[in-house]
């Protein structure tokens, strides 16, 4: 995975997706109000190659860490949340390396998913929103039998515990989603880049 310094990019960057080959990492110059105006952009993972057995209707495919396609969102490896848009940047979380496959754990048999995400900067105020978006996306994309844990990668955020606590509290998540404004924000994060 290459790791390039971001440089001002064209407005058309919004179209950049994990599909485009050579999806080059570029940064975009956003409004001055952004906290991290110049984030690092990483290359998105390729779509996983469809194996012959996956097209055989009689074979059962387990949900695994590579369930990227299932979740259509670009949490790599878990490309689970891959295409979730960062609330601040018109880039996917994967492009920003907020989520990476190695930090996603999936156990189909036990029905368990654990996602750790890494905010771009330690003081990112959007951490909770990103977490919430990931969580909602997982809830919508996974069968009901799955238990979902979403946490900040240890040591990556200033108020790690507070964020984790918020994301781990079912009641608070539910309450947050009752808030139409917040839900709207989350939906915006989840709007799939076509």
């Amino acid at each position: 995975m290459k790791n390039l310094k971001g440089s001002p990019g064209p407005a058309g960057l919004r179209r950049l997706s994990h599909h485009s080959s050579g999806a080059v990492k570029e940064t975009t110059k956003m409004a001055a109000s952004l906290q991290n105006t110049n984030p690092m952009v990483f290359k998105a993972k390729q779509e996983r190659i469809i194996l012959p057995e996956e097209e055989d209707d009689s074979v059962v495919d387990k949900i695994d860490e590579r369930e990227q396609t299932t979740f259509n969102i670009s949490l790599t490896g878990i490309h689970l949340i891959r295409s979730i848009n960062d609330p601040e940047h018109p880039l996917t979380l994967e492009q920003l390396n907020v989520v990476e496959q190695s930090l996603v754990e999936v156990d189909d048999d036990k029905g368990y998913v654990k996602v750790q995400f890494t905010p771009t900067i330690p003081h990112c105020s959007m951490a909770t929103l990103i977490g919430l978006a990931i969580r909602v996306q997982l809830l919508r994309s996974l069968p009901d039998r799955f238990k979902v844990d979403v946490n900040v990668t240890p040591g990556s955020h200033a108020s790690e515990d507070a964020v984790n606590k918020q994301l781990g509290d079912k009641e608070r998540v539910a309450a947050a989603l009752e808030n139409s404004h917040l839900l709207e924000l989350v939906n915006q994060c989840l709007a799939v880049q076509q």
Partner: protein
Amino acid sequence: MASTEGNGILTEENFEQRLSLLVQDICSKRLELVTIVEDLGPQLTSTNLNERCLGVRFLANVLHRLVGFPFQEKEVTLFSEFLCDRLKDNYTIIPHALFGLLSLATNQNLADEDCLKITQTIFKEVHVQSLLKDGRLTTFNLFAVLLNKHLKVLTTVGNDFVFGFIQAMDGEKDPRNLMLVFDLVRVIVRNFSIDLFVEDLFEVTSCYFPIDFTPPSDDPYGIKKEDLVARLRNCLAATNQFAPVCLPLLMEKLSSDIIDAKIDSLLTLSACLDVYHSTYVLEHVMPLWRDIKRVVFHSSSTELEENVQEKYEELLETVLKEMGDCNHLTGSNDVKLIKSCGRILHAVALSTEPACQKIIDSIFPLLFEQFKEMDVLEVAHTKIFIFIITGLLKAAKTFYADPSGGSSLSASYFSGIGQQGKFTKTSRSALSQLSKMYPDIIQTTLLPTLQMHLKTEDGSAMDTDRSEPHTSPVSHQCVLDTLAAVCTHDSIVRDVVPRLIEHVQHMCEAENLDEMQCNRVLDCVRNIIEDSIQRDKSSAVYFKRSVVPTILRVAISRQTELVPRLQYLACHCDHERSAESDELTSTLNELSSRIWQNSDKEGSRKRATKTWLWLTKAVVIRSHALAPKFIEMVLSLMKDREVGRFAADGFYIIVADFDEVMNVKMHANCRMMYRQRLFMEHHHLCALSHLLRWIPKQVLLSEVPRLMPLLVQSLSCDEQSLKLSTLHTMSSLMFDAPEIITRQVTSLVPILLRLSQFQISMKIRMESLKCLGAMTTLPHHVVYPYKTKVCKTLADSVDDKKRLVRKEAVKCRNKWYLLGSSTR
């Protein structure tokens, strides 16, 4: 000697004795009238009130006793002047003076001037209501006598007299006096112009209504409440001029809580209705009617009910009169009147059986009479009359299962309408009503007339073409419509249908066939059969036996477009399908051979093809064993240069639904999924589906609306490849023709959800998920209602055993979740 006797002083003690002596003397001419006055002079002019009173009283009594003893004119004048003078005297004297005047007026012939003088003086000098009750009675008696003997003179001062009388009677309380007063009021109302005083007179009279009087047990005059009531009623019903003020009063009293008052009001109302012009009555007719109804429904008094009965009749008669009046009138105003009359009649007729009987007995003749004169009247009038008659007949129907009395009337009514030749819509409905009750009459009277019309219209069509091109077809249609309308009874149907078919045959044999006309007749037959079968399914057997073969004969002789439709309608009318399938097969075989018999000519080949197509539709619908054979024939026809195109189009006929024929409503034997079966067998739909996928969209789009139902249905069939290709087509159509898909969303969503769990093929699961996902691009209001349902159902799909399916499910589900957020 008389004078000597008379010389004594008149006292109370000798009053009677002297009175009789004096009267005897006068009668025997022993004494002159003048002498009496001279003798009485001192007393009459005495300054002592009692003396004077006694004198006047004596004189009055003398006059009273002198019955049959005519005075000279001069004497009469003298006495009347004197007594009138006395009216200005003390109040104790006035009653005696009045008595004297009364006696004078009764026994002698008053001159006109005297008469006027008397009345004027009374009105001027006497305040009647401050007299004692005997004095008042005397006054009223005097009025009565004067009115009786000198009416003509009094009418010359009409207004003064009426006004004076009103003042005189205002506030009268004594029942005996009232008896007289009421009589007088009636006389006055009858003979005087009361225009100026209508309300005053009504007020002073009506204030007694309703009369509440319990006679004392020792009443010497034996006046009963009924006497008073009857007299007052006569007053109120004395003139039409009271109508505008009286009707509201009566309505108010009708709603009284006292039963007596109600009865009185009703009886009075009925009395009034005799007199009052119907124009006034009609103004109040609806509220009156309401009140009366309320009285009837909320009362348990039988007496009251009887009265109400009477009331009906009165009301009826009034209305009748009005109808009579309307006879010669024209103009919108009267149309309204007649209309309200009609409404009343209807309401009344509906209320009770006797009322209904009465109406039928009394009004129908009148109506018919008027109806005959209807040529002169406007169409609006005619309509209203028919409307009324229809309404009444309906009403009559509720009471009589078999009204024999009305039948003769109805008969004349029919012929009346028949001769009119104006079969307006209303009259049709009238006839329809009638036909339910009197099928016999319809058959004997109406049908011949109508058939005559039908024939003449038909025969004269060419002659009349030039002169009145419009009338002919219109009335032809009219006759047909009428026929259809009266077919409410099996016996009529069985009479009419053969007649019509015969007519069609006749028309078909004619040289230049009028197809329009022919079709109309056939349409008519079709309607009749339809209705008849809806009414009673058993009649289908009849149609099968008698109608179908005839029509078939006609049909085969002229292969017109409509005939085959009809014939198959007829075929499928039958309900014992299984029993007659052999029969059907043989019919079909026979038909299929005959249809092509003389199809060599240009036009007839096309007709034959059309007939064949309809036949094909029929057999396909019921999945008859011969269906494939028929379809094959159609397919082969497609190669035919002349009718090929026609045959190809014919598939539309075969698979499309028609409102008029061969649907479930018509009892056609529609097998489930006959369309699918048709296409399964021929793989047409598959081809179609594939075509749709690749044909340029612009070409396709215009055809899509018609194909859509088929596509939706093909999603429910078993063929997987068909499903898959249809799903492909669908998802591309979501973007290309969203407005068409939108119309199908209701049926598509459940189908696609079901297919998303179609276990046999993951491809179908994925395709349907793609389709569902694409659906979110449709207008928000169309799809949003399904959001919850779809998201919930897709919970299973995201747990699909296949990753690729899961991927689609997630995509799809997320799209649905995002519905309603502003991200799109």
